[in-house]
């Protein structure tokens, strides 16, 4: 007789995620069900609005990957209208997006994922001097003195002794699955604190180009960050705008700060932690199919071959199977609602391409408070996107796979280096820890690119090109009566696309298909399983049923972002709510 384990809330993620799993007699997960439990209906809200406003709404899909939806949105409008943007705008967007990667991945590792591997309470037993030696053996990072680690230890001790553990209260401390020695735990805790301070500094890059973070500004047709060349003289002592030669120098400093932390802290820490958990390279594979939309254009010609991340799919772990994708092809990308709390007018068992996307809320789950979902029926606010009917994994591991498939030299070098260091075969990447390691490795790749983009921006400015916005198509009356487009971003969590239909200058249909929807969706009409569920069903045994540490490890390896994943298409049929209550 199987036993049901529920984890809700899955914490240290963005948004509201619940999982229910069945254990077989041996304690292994035999079935897993992932459910998004909160819906907002954003795309319905976007209908009939000015497409130039859409970015601000879309950006509020998520405040963690705070800029990717703004970027996807402005790109969708630009794609629909054939609106070219100046080279400087591409560079600024690349810089902002890459900064998002670095910020997001580091925070994910330390503040969302690390506590799955790091036992904070055990750090109290560490010897700061030995910790210092450990830290110095794996990195040249300057903050590594015994005093530095003793300070971190004192802070945690303060919490424990005060009896108010705050965010560390009631966790799985002491679980047999924690395997780091106290010193490694203390090192990670110190870096948890360090990363909190670091992240606050590096988002200044977003503030300089976008005015604030979270939720920096975007603008259809380029960037809303005019470059002022000589602020003080022209404005009588006031700064002109926040982008000028002085602040671009600050951007340079931010990039250096990012790079130092990634190279000397994040990457070495990830590999050090991974070396204690090698069995986690043998479980948690997803669906074995990977997809990237590609991104980081280096010029405005739209030439995809110059993109840093390629666009394509790899199926069945077969690197030779790489093939390009066409997001406008109704046969390729579809969204399915067979097991979600939505209904389609022509039946729930067909998939719809995002341009034709439609949805009605059709909540027939249990009325709260409830203890179990009806997983045999509908069980999530997430739809299930498919590529040619197949589930795909998107995100850092997918990027690593398409990079390897297309022979990207730097990615190959980083991946083989890490595998060699850990003494693991290449198949090890298809796993929980493989996903976590791929995230750290790609962060290194992005941070290495940033100086080059900034150099190019400086060079353009020096050559007199200050242009950041193409205003030619700003007025909606210059637009065609009907236009369709898709804006894609290779976001930190994976392939992101916003599909837009513009009619008479207004949004007629808007559909966002986001990374976490690809990975975390419920089953489809054919019983096809998405990546979260597949990964949990791959070789997971719970050591303690009341403390399902194994489950959250694998879920966190995907960096779930649930507010992103849950959405609703805007469609004429959807104006009236259709709620059927069980």
């Amino acid at each position, binding site marked *: 007789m199987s036993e049901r384990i529920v984890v809700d809330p899955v914490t240290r993620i963005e948004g509201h995620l619940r999982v229910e799993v069945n254990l077989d007699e041996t304690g292994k997960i035999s079935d897993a069900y992932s459910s998004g439990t909160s819906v907002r209906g954003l795309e319905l809200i976007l209908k009939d609005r000015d497409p130039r406003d859409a970015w601000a709404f879309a950006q509020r899909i998520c405040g963690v990957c705070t800029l990717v939806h703004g970027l996807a949105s402005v790109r969708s409008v630009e794609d629909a209208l054939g609106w070219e943007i100046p080279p400087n705008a591409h560079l600024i967007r690349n810089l902002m997006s890459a900064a998002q990667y670095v910020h997001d991945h580091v925070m994910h590792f330390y503040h969302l994922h690390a506590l799955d591997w790091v036992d904070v309470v055990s750090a109290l037993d560490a010897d700061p001097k030995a910790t210092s030696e450990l830290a110095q053996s794996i990195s040249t990072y300057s903050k590594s003195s015994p005093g530095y680690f003793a300070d971190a230890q004192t802070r945690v001790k303060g919490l424990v002794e005060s009896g108010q553990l705050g965010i560390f209260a009631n966790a799985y401390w002491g679980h047999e699955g924690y395997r780091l020695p106290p010193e490694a735990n203390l090192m990670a805790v110190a870096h948890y604190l360090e990363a909190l*301070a670091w992240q606050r*500094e590096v988002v200044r890059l977003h503030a300089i180009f976008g005015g604030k973070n979270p939720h920096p500004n975007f603008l259809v047709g380029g960037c809303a960050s005019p470059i002022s060349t000589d602020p003080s003289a*022209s*404005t*009588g*002592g*006031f700064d002109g705008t926040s982008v000028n030669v002085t602040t671009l120098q600050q951007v340079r400093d931010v990039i250096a700060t990012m790079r130092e932390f990634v190279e000397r802290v994040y990457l070495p820490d990830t590999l050090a932690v991974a070396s204690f958990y090698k069995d986690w390279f043998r479980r948690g594979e997803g669906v074995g199919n990977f997809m990237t939309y590609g991104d980081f254009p280096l010029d405005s010609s739209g030439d995809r071959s110059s993109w840093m991340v390629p666009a394509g799919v790899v199926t069945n772990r077969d690197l030779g199977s790489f093939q390009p994708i066409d997001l406008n092809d109704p046969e390729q990308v579809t969204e399915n609602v067979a097991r979600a709390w939505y209904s389609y007018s022509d039946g729930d068992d067909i998939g719809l391409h995002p341009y034709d996307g439609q949805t009605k809320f059709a909540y027939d789950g249990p009325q709260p408070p409830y203890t179990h979902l009806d997983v045999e029926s509908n069980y999530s606010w997430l739809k299930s996107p498919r590529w040619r009917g197949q589930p795909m994994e998107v995100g850092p591991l997918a990027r690593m796979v398409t990079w390897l498939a297309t022979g990207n030299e730097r990615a190959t070098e980083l991946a083989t280096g890490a595998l060699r260091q850990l003494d693991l075969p290449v198949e090890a990447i298809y796993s929980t820890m493989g996903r976590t390691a791929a995230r750290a490795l790609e962060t290194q790749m992005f941070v290495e690119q940033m100086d080059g983009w900034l150099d190019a921006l400086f060079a353009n400015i020096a050559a007199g090109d200050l242009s950041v916005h193409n205003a030619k198509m700003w007025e909606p009356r210059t637009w065609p009566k009907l236009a369709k487009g898709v804006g894609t971003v290779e976001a930190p969590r994976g392939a992101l696309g916003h599909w837009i239909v513009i009619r008479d200058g207004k949004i007629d249909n808007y559909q966002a298909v986001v990374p976490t929807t690809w990975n975390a969706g419920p089953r489809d009409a054919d019983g096809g399983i998405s990546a979260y569920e597949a990964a949990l069903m791959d070789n997971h045994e719970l050591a303690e049923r009341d403390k399902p540490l194994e489950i959250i490890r694998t879920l966190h390896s995907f960096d779930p972002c649930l507010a992103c994943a849950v959405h609703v298409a805007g469609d004429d049929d959807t104006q009236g709510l259709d709620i059927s209550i069980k």
Partner: protein
Amino acid sequence: MSLAPDKETTDGFIQAILAELATRLAELASTGIEAQIDLRSLPMDPPKRAALDAKLGKGDVTATIADRAGRTEVFETRYAGVWRLAHYDMHDTLLMEEIAIAPVPDILRADPTDMAEAAARLGAELALDTKKGHAND
């Protein structure tokens, strides 16, 4: 097109602040009532700011408080009892600036709790030294 603020506005603004300072300083001298003015609450563009700095100038006393949470720079202006304070956080970002009208700014005074703690610590150290001293005899 230049947009340098008019000289009159600047002069008027500085006059207003100085008048306020004069009143408070007189009050301090006669009644001992201290006052603080938060410079953040006064919208000053760079020219106004420069004019104020020039007028107040620098006097005899300068002090720095540096601790693990940040730093405070204190100096007396050319007017006795009128102090300038600038507070920085641990990343050396300027938090705020103020003008204090006081015999000595509050933050320079040692806090009773800190003093009590110091007294206890000193006592303990003394006791330890004495013990060590005996041990060495």
